[in-house]
Structures are given as C-alpha cells and as structure tokens.
C-alpha cells in the first residue's frame, strides 16, 4: 500500500463564489445597485427596508426586494405593502442565503427584470454569523444594529461587521430610554471597520432616512458610471 497526497488548493465555497461572480456581472450589465442587508433577528431590517422602498418609490425610483426567512412569507407581505415587487425566499432551516437561491428566485420572477430596476435589496436571514461567508454578488453589504442590542455587537461579530460596506443603526428614536451609548457604539463599529459609513435611523419617525437615501443615490451613480 502506498499513500499519496493530492494537492487541491480550492475554495470550499467555490461553487457559490462562481455563481456570485456571474450574478455580479448580470447586476452590473443591468445597471442595478444590489444591496445585501444583514443583522440579528429583531433589528428591524424589514421595517427599515419597507421605509426605504416607500421613499424610493415616492421619488420615482424602481426598487424591488428579495427577502429570506427560514419559514413564512410574512415579511414579503409586509414589504409588498410598499408597492414594490417583493419575492420571498424560504430557506427551510438554512441559516443564510446563498448565490444559488438568489439566482433561482430571480429566474421566473413575474414582472421583474433586472434591467428594469434601479435598486434590488436582498434581506438576508436574521443571523450575524453565517451570511458573512456567502457572497450574493451584491455591491454593498449593509450591517444593521439596533439600539436595543448592545453597543458591543460589532466586537462580538467582527467577521460580519468587518465585511460590511455600510452600517445602519436602527430604532434611534428609542435610544434614550434604552440607555444606548451612541459614542461607544460608533467607536466599536469603527474599531472593527475603520472609516465605514454609518447611518443612524428610525424607520418609525424617518429620522436619518434622508442621509441613507442620498447614500443610495450616490452609490448608484458611482456604480453606474
């Protein structure tokens, strides 16, 4: 009996990465800005996205959303009330979205063509660990954190915050009763991802949405040029 070492030097998530590269090419060709929203369950991703969709539609932009959850289409129904096309992805127990799920749900999405959109939002499954490993071909990964969660969340989940392009602090309207230490939260985010763009928002009152929408517009124009 002889033994032999076979060198592979291959990415474990190679299939996902290849699919994601293909998706990225399609997004770019279609001129649509794609964002992947990631947070813990309960941060308010859906409320934030609902407000964002409403505001974008009111300004005449074409925006749509894919929303990932383990089960139920509750979020898709909530988001559809904004008037934007929304499609639910049920992962049935899988803790993250992957490129194949995105590819499959973009195909056969009745009435929605990538070329007919300015923005496509992907609301990931509520989880701060697993989604960080899976590239969905997005241009911008957004990490969300609510004032009820504790200022040290970025330190506890550095992998995700370090891979994000923008950070959104939600529920800022209840920061005070929650005893939220704003300076500490900003410092922690910056410690993990120095220089990241941070938006402090309330989906309920609309505080901070202007800055966020201006960022979306700016990024869309940068990416499109």
């Amino acid at each position: 009996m002889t033994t032999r070492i076979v060198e592979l030097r291959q990415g474990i998530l190679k299939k996902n990465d290849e699919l994601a590269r293909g998706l990225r090419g399609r997004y770019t060709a279609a001129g649509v800005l794609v964002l992947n929203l990631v947070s813990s369950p309960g941060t308010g991703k859906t409320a934030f996205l609902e407000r964002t969709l409403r505001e974008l539609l009111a300004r005449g932009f074409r925006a749509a959303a894919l929303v990932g959850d383990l089960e139920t289409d509750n979020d898709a129904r909530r988001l559809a009330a904004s008037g934007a096309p929304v499609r639910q992805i049920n992962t049935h127990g899988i803790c993250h979205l992957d490129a194949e799920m995105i590819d499959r749900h973009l195909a056969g999405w009745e009435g929605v063509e990538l070329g007919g959109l300015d923005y496509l939002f992907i609301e990931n499954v509520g989880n701060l660990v697993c989604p960080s490993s899976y590239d969905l071909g997005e241009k911008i990964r957004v990490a969300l954190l609510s004032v009820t969660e504790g200022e040290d969340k970025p330190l506890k989940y550095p992998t995700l915050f370090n891979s994000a392009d923008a950070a959104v602090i939600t529920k800022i309207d209840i920061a005070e009763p929650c005893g939220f230490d704003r300076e500490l939260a900003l410092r922690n985010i910056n410690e993990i991802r120095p220089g990241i763009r941070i938006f402090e928002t309330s989906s309920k009152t609309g505080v901070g949405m202007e800055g966020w929408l201006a960022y979306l517009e700016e990024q869309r124009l940068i990416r499109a040029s």
Partner: protein
Amino acid sequence: MHELSIVSSVVDTVTESVAAYPDARVLEVRLRVGVLTSVVVDSLEFCWGIATEGTPLEGSRLVVTMVPVLMHCDKCAADVELDGVQSFRCPRCGEPCTDLRQGRELDIESFEIDEVEEKVKA
C-alpha cells in the same frame, strides 16, 4: 451553524477528485481556515463523521490549519499580523487598517489517499 454546509461542500469536492483514483481510500483532508470566517473548528470536526459516512472519505481525519489576519498598514508600508479580531489597527503604530490581505481563507489544501497497487496495463 453553517459548518455542516461547509463540510458537505468539502466532502462533495473531495469525492469528485478522488474518483480519479479508483479503490483509493481517503486518509486525511487538510483545510486552511481564516480567523475572519466565523467557522468553528469544533463544529467542523463534529459534522465530519456524519457528513463522510458512506462516502470514500469515511473514517478519514480532518486537519484544520487556522490562518491569521494580515492587514496592510500604509503608514508602516508593511503587512502586519493582528493579535485578534477586536481591533483593526496596526499593532506597530496604532493606525486603523482597512486593507485586508489574509484571514478570510476557506480552502481545501490537499487530501491524502492510500492506493492499492496500481494495475499494470497490458
């Protein structure tokens, strides 16, 4: 807990590759895992036995090498290794670092097989 998905990908990839060596048995699979991947090595090992059952990898060892985070520090003009992942600052000069050079690896490096005597072709 996406370790089972990761382990399943490894098993699929190695199973495909090992098909080129008929009757070979896989003894060991070596992975390189970056510190910034949130992959828990204990969980990989826990899933390994289950995921390899009934495959050519059954009974094999999983060997994981952790890859530290390397950032490029502009001020020091050098790649610097971080002590941990709680602060993305240059450990030499304290400057914030954004240019990641290493630490997100999630790779299959190699696998080892035992081969039965190769049949001599007539």
